């Protein structure tokens, strides 16, 4: 197996007036291609912060995040946007779809910023939506879709660029158990096709259901790494 993401001694601090908040205190983590890694830990332990830094939405205070050989810490804003455009996909707890665009339009969006031609884009986006089971919902606006369907659109949007890794921050957090379970099945199916995931969750059952490995973070430090249910 080859390394998709290599996190080394990652640190993140927030300075709030006089006090310095250490949110990540030297996290080391290696994720291999084709792996599903879940991050668990209490609220405020730094799970989302870790994900956002790996996704290039936030910047580390120290350490390195190497994705397919490139260190994110060394990238400028333009390069980081390019990284988000081509090498990662995001799935958020609150779906984060653009309300005025159709399902197809939302999935096309990353391709728009990547400069993919209109015709190619429509084909790629439609096939991504088909792969999440929404082949018949292309023209629906987010308000015309259920929560589970919206999160499927978000998954399709995250994979449409063919990223090295898909980051999902509490992807089932806003869904009921059954619907959440469907999303987990979708993730498993996509992993079976070779896609790599880094997922945060509060829910042990979720982690057990999809993860090869489970990383426990407490107060910004990795305290334990376990084999998940899938391994």
């Amino acid at each position, binding site marked *: 197996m080859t390394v998709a993401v290599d996190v080394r001694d990652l640190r993140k601090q927030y300075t709030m007036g006089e006090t310095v908040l250490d949110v990540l205190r030297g996290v080391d983590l290696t994720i291999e291609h084709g792996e599903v890694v879940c991050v668990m830990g209490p609220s405020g332990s730094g799970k989302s912060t870790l994900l956002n830094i790996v996704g290039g*939405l936030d910047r580390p205070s120290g350490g390195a995040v190497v994705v397919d050989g490139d260190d994110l810490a060394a990238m400028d804003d*333009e390069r980081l946007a390019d990284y988000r455009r081509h090498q990662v996909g995001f799935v958020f707890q609150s779906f*984060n779809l*653009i309300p005025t665009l159709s399902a197809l339009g939302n999935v096309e969006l990353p391709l*728009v*910023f990547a400069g993919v031609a209109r015709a190619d884009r429509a084909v790629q986006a439609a096939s991504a939506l088909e792969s999440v089971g929404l082949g018949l919902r292309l023209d629906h606006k987010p308000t015309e879709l259920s929560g589970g369907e919206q999160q499927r659109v978000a998954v399709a949007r995250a994979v449409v660029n063919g990223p090295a890794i898909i980051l999902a921050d509490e992807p089932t957090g806003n869904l009921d158990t059954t619907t959440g379970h469907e999303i987990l099945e979708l993730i498993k199916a996509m992993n079976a096709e070779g896609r790599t995931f880094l997922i945060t969750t509060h829910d042990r059952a979720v982690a057990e259901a999809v993860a090869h490995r489970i990383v426990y973070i407490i107060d910004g430090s990795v305290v334990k790494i376990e084999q998940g249910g899938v391994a």
Partner: protein
Amino acid sequence: MRPRDLIFLVVSNLRRMKLRLALTTLGVVIGTSAIVLMVSLGVGLQRSVVDSLGELGAATHITVMTGYEGITGAESKSLDDRTVAQFEDMEHVDSVMPIVTVMSVQELAYKKNSTNANIQGVAPHKLEEFGYKLAEGRFARTDSEIVLGAAVPAMFLGVFPGSETANQPSLDLLGKRIVATVVEYPSEEAYAQNPMTEPTERTYKLTVVGILEKADMGTDSSVYTTLDAALEYNGATTRRPTYETVTVKADSAEAVADIEKALVAEGFQTFSARSIQDATSQIFIIVQVVLGALGGIAMIVAALGIANTMTMSIYERTREIGIMKAVGASNRQIKRVFLGEAAVIGVFGGLGGLAFSSAGAALANLFLQSMIAASTPTGGASEPTNFFYIPLWLAIFAVAFATGIGLLSGVLPAVRAANLDPLVALRHE
């Protein structure tokens, strides 16, 4: 991002804020209209004033007179055949026409009617060369033949140029005999010998062989005879004649200013319709700038409206900006989307303003023309004046300016949107 996709994003964003967009655009429409109407009023006035100055003479003609003595210390230059030859050699000079003005016309009489129109002595072929057109008849061939300016027949009836009315009576003088009475005052020596010497009157019988087409005011009210005849009326010799004025014809209207400058440097006095028009045009540029600036105040308000609308809509779409950044939009791409929205407001506002002000100008012209027609005795016989005139440059400028204002007003909000931290934007409710 491809231009087409940029346009798609811009348009779909604009479509969801229709009312706000309409109101903001209306602001630009009003701003653009204010500028266009103001400037077009300046342009319209300039055109009508400058056009009427054109009645002072043809655009390529320069009237040269002998210079004043004493003011510059330069010696007074006389206009004689040598100076005429000198003028003919100047660059950009097509032709030179010496004119002898008959100083002492007592009257010109036809039967019971008479007038004291100027008599100008000019070589007939020069008249032709200088573009004088005959309405009827031909140019003079002998010293006893004359050609009348267009307004002269009416002057015999006491109607002066500029005060014509519709359906005025006129005299048909072509082929008719006119009697000119010329007074000769005693020369200085004669006066010195005998202060009681009386002026002598002489009469000449002249035949009208042609009538000129309507031209400028000076031409219309003059009677043209030959150089030799005019010199004789003045009691001067034809051996070394001097001329009161010489008309110089430039090869183009653009060359007039340079030729005039050279002539003035030589110590002559000059006059041309063209230079007066140029000076007047310069004054009107100031008028247009002032009027345009007044209209510009409305545009400033419109610009604030655009900036306000953009700021508000960007605030409302903060979370979407976060989403776009998360899926890979660069700062530059975000900036372009919002600048595009502001520019579209500018373009549509500019086009709308141009349409609105064109209609407004046309209506205002109709209204003003009908008011003038109602208050003039001629019933508006002369060509109608356009007080508001929108030249092509103004139309293009107006749309470009409105677009520029849109872009400019959008810069600050767009830069703010582009520089939003993606995480902060994503957390925005």
